[in-house]
């Protein structure tokens, strides 16, 4: 369980992703977990906004979680810390930490692999073996902005990155009452695409959830269906496709 304000020990013993362990250990795992929870929540919120009428209760609860994390990160100054510590591997680590976060402590101790996440690790391994320019992307359409180095946290000016993040949050909260499909476009065009690798997050989430207990339909369950007229830019095509799959499955 992910207890707030409590530092958790890094797990070890997983041979298959041992190479990444060094990276994880370098950064306090609680922050990583919190960061991955934030990433996950932002992806969920963004998926909410692709629907004309999202499940309001769910959106509000996720938005409150994001607010809570943001508040805590502002208080303990993690903003700046991450800013200085991050390396080119950060977003990878973040993705991996999602994996850590979702294992129970017992499983970690026994070094067992949760079936639901094995594909995730496999993806990750595959990614690692590839050239870093190809890493993390399943489509070739959006190579340039998805440079791992240009991460929001690594911007020179912390204030600037903070402002950027704040802006994206505001947009997300603003669009809670989103009626206009174009705002999806706005959301994506104005938010720094390289903040995190959305496609990989999505595919990661998808493979996780497909292998997991809930099927795709329930995973992103919402009483409304996705808009058919979401006229997103080309780099959103894949995202659209994924959402379509989610909706249709």
């Amino acid at each position: 369980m992910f207890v707030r304000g409590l530092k958790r020990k890094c797990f070890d013993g997983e041979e298959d992703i041992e190479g990444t362990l060094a990276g994880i250990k370098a950064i306090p795992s609680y922050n990583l977990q919190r960061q991955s929870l934030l990433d996950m929540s932002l992806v969920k919120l963004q998926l909410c906004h692709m629907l004309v009428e999202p499940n309001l209760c769910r959106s509000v609860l996720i938005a409150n979680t994001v607010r809570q994390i943001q508040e805590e990160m502002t208080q303990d100054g993690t903003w700046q810390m991450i800013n200085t510590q991050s390396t080119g591997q950060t977003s990878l680590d973040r993705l991996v930490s999602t994996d850590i976060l979702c294992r129970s402590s017992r499983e970690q101790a026994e070094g067992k692999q949760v079936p639901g996440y094995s594909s995730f690790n496999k993806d990750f391994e595959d990614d690692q073996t590839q050239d870093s320019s190809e890493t993390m992307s399943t489509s070739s359409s959006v190579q340039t902005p998805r440079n791992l180095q240009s991460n929001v946290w690594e911007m020179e000016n912390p204030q600037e990155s903070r402002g950027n993040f704040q802006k994206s949050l505001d947009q997300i909260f603003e669009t809670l009452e989103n009626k206009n499909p174009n705002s999806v476009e706005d959301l994506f065009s104005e938010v720094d695409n390289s903040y995190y690798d959305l496609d990989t997050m999505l595919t990661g989430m998808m493979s996780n959830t497909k292998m997991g207990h809930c099927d795709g339909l329930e995973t992103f369950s919402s009483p409304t269906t996705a808009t058919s007229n979401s006229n997103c830019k080309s780099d959103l095509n894949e995202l659209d496709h994924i959402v379509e799959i989610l909706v249709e499955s």
Partner: protein
Amino acid sequence: MAQWAEAAGKGRSLQGCGAPWGPADIISTVEFNHTGELLATGDKGGRVVIFQREQESKQQPQRRGEYNVYSTFQSHEPEFDYLKSLEIEEKINKIRWLPQHNAAYFLLSTNDKTVKLWKVSERDKRPEGYNLKDEDGRLRDPSMITTLRVPVLRPMDLMVEATPRRVFANAHTYHINSISVNSDYETYMSADDLRINLWNFEITNQSFNIVDIKPANMEELTEVITAAEFHPHHCNAFVYSSSKGTIRLCDMRAAALCDRHAKFFEEPEDPSNRSFFSEIISSISDVKFSHSGRYIMTRDYLTVKVWDLNMENRPMETYQVHDYLRSKLCSLYENDCIFDKFECVWNGSDSVIMTGSYNNFFRMFDRNTKRDVTLEASRENSKPRAVLKPRKVCVGGKRRKDEISVDSLDFSKKILHTAWHPSENIIAVAATNNLYIFQDKVN
């Protein structure tokens, strides 16, 4: 606690008896009427199926709890809102019966936006021998009518008709999550994420807004209404629950717009259990008054709580439904199960409460003896009429025989909707597309 067995061979999984099924067949609500003679289910495809209890007969006492299909009708159709460019799902969110006043039955059904009042009535005679119409209902040529005759009623096969009597539309911007018939039987309310409206059954073109929590600026929205219900006896009182885990009791005598509550029920947060998921798991998914009207029951993600109307600062009783999931909240957040809306019900005497869980498990808590039981609604693991075996989930350590480990629970098989007969130990449990009816075993 009573032993439970499936009601009857024929009553077994009444809906979707092994036939191919799709998402439209997923049962989305279950409700007994006030006598328990009828049981209505609504599904994702907008259909309402009503089951009627078989008459008791001395020859076949085992048939006492058997329910058979009485009427099926399409209550809601998928719609498209052209102004908002928005599809409106036909899924039935809730069904509520009106007390019976004549031979016909009335029920309210709602999807996300529109509430409908349906009349379900029987017909076993039909008029014959009209003067102006022929037997097929076509108008006769007046020049052919040479004699007058008296129409007569002739017996025919029993037919159950469902007719829409009222359509209450265009009053909700958000998704309707609850409807509740008032004890004056003249009004009812419908609640969506941000507002509650009060309707008169006779008036479809206007309703009174009695609660509105929509902030002027939607960016400031941090709380939504999750469920609402009228007091069973006092027509001026109702409660609504929120996504922050609180319950407000409102008195309509105080003001027309009940923005200020009369009572506010909230339990202080346990600091030792605090996590980023605290708010999400404390969000209330269902609220129900006891039959007596003295208590309210609320369901959140991990617990059921019973509150005394006279004590606002903490619940009287808290029952753990599936506490073993506390260590799994992150994956349940990731796969969205944490947002599942489990409902809860009282038995006829308010002494036992029931609610659902995952893996087709459902839980019962005896408030007097403090005993609880986990049962499973499943075709694979139960024989017809066999007594349901209590199930146990093993948490860590060594798994004993008959126990199921937390890691092998199936989170796609969830029991969200259940109903308890108003006076007898008969329960209806909706497991995805199957409806199970169980009754206590009489030896």
